[in-house]
């Protein structure tokens, strides 16, 4: 396979992120069902290959990475402490980067190239555009921004404005669209009328890519091309990966609107299983190494969650409630 050459180490790193994310999701789902988490819990089952691929070609400290709801695998690839930060976000630890002021999937470290997403879908695309524009204005080149959205977000006005703007300014942004077939409960057929979301990217004037998001190596290979093209100055890239969300929108949602046959079909191509099989087939990972990676992932997840649960919650009386950094009383 062209493009897959040289992917062995990258693929193992991506797979490790997928294992961590799956273990995290499994644990978090149990905690949610046990009533141990405030608010909603949003998992990335079925998205792991795309998510991990979206981060694995990026250079932390240079590039911009904007994951959102189902990119836990990408977050784990992007930073070593992602599990702990994600756990802190869910449990509202005062030590987390959001300090209990925001939670669940709404966390990030904007000064480290990782903006903190708001709930309003599509809003972060233009923020990523601005971060890349700032680099251009400062004379920095060769960096890439990856912004992750879903099929539903392609219907949002903010996403359209941002994608058009990214294309007009020829910014080095890869828009990763994970089409998981359902925007919450709404199927693709009620979300958009174009034959394929790839057409949208063409309409914006972006170079387009598409892949089967359950096929780990194909996803990696196509993502590599997209990220490299953006890095090489070929302008914005539109990358559509198709998969199925193998869970509800959140854990409160039983996803009964997804036909059983579709669920069963995708259960047979779970990205974790596909990735493991592909890595073993190529000899990039041994069976015992893969088992070990899985076991370590579960252990690391346990530790991260236990730590976040032990950490102090924010104390209302000690909180800094200020909404602005500048205080007119002190001016």
């Amino acid at each position, binding site marked *: 396979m062209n493009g897959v050459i040289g992917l062995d180490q990258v693929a193992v790193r991506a797979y490790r992120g997928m294992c961590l994310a799956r273990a995290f999701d499994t644990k978090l789902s149990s905690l949610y069902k046990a009533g141990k988490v405030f608010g909603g819990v949003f998992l990335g089952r079925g998205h792991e290959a795309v998510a991990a691929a979206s981060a694995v070609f990026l250079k932390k400290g240079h590039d911009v990475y904007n994951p959102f709801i189902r990119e836990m695998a990408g977050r784990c690839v992007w930073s070593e402490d992602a599990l702990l930060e994600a756990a802190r976000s869910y449990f509202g630890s005062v030590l987390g*980067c*959001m*300090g209990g*002021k*925001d939670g669940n999937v*709404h966390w*990030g*470290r*904007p*000064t480290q190239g990782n*903006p*903190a997403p*708001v*709930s*309003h879908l599509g*809003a*972060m*695309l*233009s*923020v*990523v*555009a*601005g*971060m*890349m*524009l*700032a*680099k251009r*204005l*400062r004379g920095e080149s060769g960096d890439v921004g990856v912004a992750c959205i879903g099929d539903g977000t392609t219907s949002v*006005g*903010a996403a359209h*404005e*941002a994608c*058009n*703007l990214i294309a*007009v300014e020829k910014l080095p942004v890869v828009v990763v669209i994970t089409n998981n077939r359902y925007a919450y409960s709404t199927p693709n057929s009620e979300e958009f009328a174009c034959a394929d979301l790839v057409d949208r990217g063409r309409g914006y004037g972006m170079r387009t890519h598409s892949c089967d998001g359950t096929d780990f190596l194909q996803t990696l290979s196509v993502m590599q091309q997209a990220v490299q093209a953006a890095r090489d100055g070929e302008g914005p890239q539109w990358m559509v990966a198709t998969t199925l969300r193998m869970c509800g929108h959140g854990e409160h949602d039983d996803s009964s609107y997804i036909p059983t046959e579709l669920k069963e079909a995708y259960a047979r191509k779970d990205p974790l299983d596909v990735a493991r099989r592909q890595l073993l087939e190529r000899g990039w990972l041994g069976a015992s190494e893969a088992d070990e990676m899985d076991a370590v992932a579960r252990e690391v997840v346990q530790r991260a969650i236990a730590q976040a649960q032990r950490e102090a919650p924010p104390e209302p009386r000690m909180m800094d409630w*200020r*909404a*602005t*950094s*500048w205080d*007119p*009383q002190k*001016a």
Partner: protein
Amino acid sequence: MNVTYIDAIHRAMEDLLAEDERVFLYGEDIAGSFGGAFKATKGLAERYPGRVMNSPISEDAILGVSIGAALGGMHPIVEMQFADFGTLALNQTGNNAGAHYFRTGVPVNITLRMPCGGTPGGGPFHSQSVEALFAHYPGLHVLTPATVGDAYDMLKQAVQIPDPVVFMEHKYLYRRVKAESFINPDPLPVGRARIAREGKHATIVAFSAMVPEALEAAQLLAAQSGYEPEVVDLRSVKPLDTDTMLASVARTGRLLVVSEDFPWGGVAAEVVACVAAEGLHLLDAPPLRLTSKESPIPYHPELWKAHRPSAATIAQATRYLISL
């Protein structure tokens, strides 16, 4: 009297571009030789190549880009062509930029210029005063200059403030308000109101284009009735300088708040609530509001004049307030 309010805004941006390499200008139709719908950026694109940029007609994305650019260390000054279209950027401004410091501890240095307020013939969607919409969101400062000097100083100060600042520049004042110079050796800090006219019989609180109307009303009252109202120019609706208003009300015992926005939940309502909450005992009469009508802003100049507060209606309201 050869410098206008819009000259001051133009000059402030020119000086900011010269002084701070992190500053860039972004918005619809602001670049090239065109220089903006109101010519506020005329000539700046030529003088600062690459730092004055046209955007697509995408108000939401303009603000999103400015958030990202601020995170990237820049100091964007963005122009909404009309404040009315700022509602299209309300999500990014309020929910994203406004919440950013609280959520992450990282302020975003954005200056959002919004040509606001009514002009004859502007109609319902090129005339609105949307201060209250933006001020409602925690995390935003909303500045409302009424004079040439404040237009210059406060735009420069806005960029020094690390947070998102909404700079409401009134279109009616652009070429009608003039001064000898915009240079003020000792500018007031942002957040401090100004006594625009000293008086004793009532306090008229106003901001933006209502300040010259209030001053004209005060002159009318002095000439016709011998009343001497005090006029307070808020200068910013957020922060709101309650102290200066309370001190004035302590002297006069009466409060009229004039605002060009719609009445329900508007700036005047907030000012009355703040003053009454802290200074009810200072008032000899119920506080009074005078705002535009509870209807969209009409197109015909005669209808428009009747829709907004004017010197005549402010004078009338003040007489009523003093009679109580």
